């Protein structure tokens, strides 16, 4: 009779890359639905285009590299990159912007480094940043949110604009777009106005930007579900949001006329999407407990610095990429000691 002895773990769950990616994709749903509701068909078109581009580019690169295509496509990592990029892009961006972003994300951001697990930078953010510095005009094409006066194109108008570049009859581009709340704060403070006056602009809602606050709350809800399902760890999102909150609080208390409130920063731009879904990418984030705290805090700090004193209205993508570079160093210096490594007499 033979007794099998197995080493731990003795209980295994169905934890595969594919399952993780699909659950993360579902967790994006509340925020994505809010974004579609407030910003119209463009968001949905972006998602579809970006998803198709990323899956196509993944399949193409896998073929070129002589790897099996099917399993890698089914694991959902390329799809998740596509979803994140699609949600990050401005809804009125033309089709070729989405295409270029998806190609750069998958080809340069992922496969030239060796594919899933080898990429030092978050692929979706690589694609986004390439677009941001290459096409500054197209990357500001945010429509006015639902509930703000302005033109809200229907599906046909959105399709005509995205693929053919045709505006609805008798309308200029200016009537389709509107500065995002972060952009508005930045411009108007630059003009010497005080936050108290800026808050009465139509883009502002009750907590932060109109629409943006609900999109961010949606991502927050999805992120909390991810935490509860133990798909991500609390350290990175808490550190991102915590450092952003503390910095915003300090400056807001010091000079409330020129520095927006912490709540505004938490519910504006890409804060929640970045903190829960982008910064927590297991491939590119730090993997040690202390390293994750430093990594997250660094992202919050860079986001705040860029929003207030940088050249762009939001800085989540730059912050994530910059901390991605720092990740190997962080992991090296914050490695937990192996049991028995320290001399007890010390």
């Amino acid at each position, binding site marked *: 009779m033979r007794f099998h002895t197995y080493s731990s773990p003795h209980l295994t769950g169905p934890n595969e890359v594919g399952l993780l990616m699909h659950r993360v994709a579902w967790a994006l749903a509340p925020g994505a639905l809010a974004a579609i509701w407030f910003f119209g068909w463009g968001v949905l078109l972006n998602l579809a285009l970006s998803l198709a581009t990323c899956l196509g580019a993944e399949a193409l690169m896998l073929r070129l590299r002589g790897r099996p295509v099917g399993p890698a496509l089914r694991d959902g990592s390329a799809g998740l990159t596509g979803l994140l990029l699609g949600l990050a892009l401005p809804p009125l961006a033309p089709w070729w912007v989405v295409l270029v972003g998806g190609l750069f994300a998958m080809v*340069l951001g992922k496969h030239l480094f060796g594919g899933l697990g080898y990429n030092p930078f978050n692929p979706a953010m690589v694609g986004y940043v*390439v677009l941001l*510095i*290459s*096409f*500054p005009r197209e990357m500001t094409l945010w429509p006015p949110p639902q509930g703000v006066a302005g033109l809200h194109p229907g599906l046909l108008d959105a399709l005509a604009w995205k693929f053919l570049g045709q505006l609805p009859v008798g309308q200029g581009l200016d009537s389709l777009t509107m500065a995002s709340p972060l952009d508005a704060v930045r411009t108007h403070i630059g003009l010497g106005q005080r936050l108290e006056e800026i808050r009465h602009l139509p883009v502002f809602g009750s907590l932060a930007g109109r629409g943006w606050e609900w999109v961010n709350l949606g991502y927050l809800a999805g992120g909390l579900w991810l935490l509860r399902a133990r798909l991500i760890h609390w350290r990175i999102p808490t550190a991102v949001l915590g450092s952003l909150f503390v910095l915003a609080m300090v400056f807001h208390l010091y000079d409330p006329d020129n520095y927006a409130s912490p709540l505004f920063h938490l519910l504006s731009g890409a804060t929640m999407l970045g903190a829960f879904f982008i910064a927590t990418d297991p491939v590119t984030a730090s993997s040690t407990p202390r390293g994750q705290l430093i990594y997250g805090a660094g992202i919050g700090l860079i986001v705040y610095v860029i929003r207030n004193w940088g050249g762009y209205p939001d800085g989540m993508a730059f912050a994530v990429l910059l901390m991605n570079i720092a990740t190997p160093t962080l992991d090296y210096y914050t490695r937990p000691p192996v049991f028995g490594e320290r001399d007890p007499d010390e």
Partner: protein
Amino acid sequence: MNHPSYAQITREGLWSNNPALVQILGMCPMLAVTSSVVNGLGLGLATTLTLVLSNGIVSSIRHIVRPEVRIPVFVLVIASVVTVIQLVMDAYFHELYKVLGIFVPLIVTNCVIIGRAEAFASKQRADRALLDGLAMGLGFTLVLITLGAMRELAGHGTLFAQADLMLGPMASDWKLTLLPHYRGFLVAVLPPGAFLGLGLLIALKNLIDRRQEQRRAARHRQAAPAPATAAS
């Protein structure tokens, strides 16, 4: 000390030991000024001239320079050559000189030049040193032009813009607009585009080398049975 043939020296400089693609030297000017073909050509030719002159001088004084002080002497020689070239460029190609700016005097610190002086010219006869300077310089220039063309085409959709800066008014209409109504892909002209472009060029060179290696190996396998039977 081995004495390579002229053909070997030429092949090393242009391809197998290319300063930009294999030695990865002189990155600073290579990445900074290659935003267009003309800029790349201008800096490449200035670097080539410096390399030829400095290699020639270093080689001809190699017996009278004591080894302990050779590096400072080489630097002095290179700095003098670059100063002459800088003044000549300022006099005859003033507009191009203004575009290239600080990178012309910075040729002094280009590692390709001190590298060739130390590794090659200080140990070889003057004729070989001159040829090495020319081959290395041309190899560097070719990469600068290719990188400049890639970035100019991707960034602006043109080639040979501003050629009149270098070749006079007759070249003022040389500008080729290959992609009309092109929106411009800004990242190609910005510094990240230089790194991406250089990386792609190095990858391309490695790919070509590997293909050649495979082909040679395949030929060897085919050719191998014949001498084996002859020997038996």
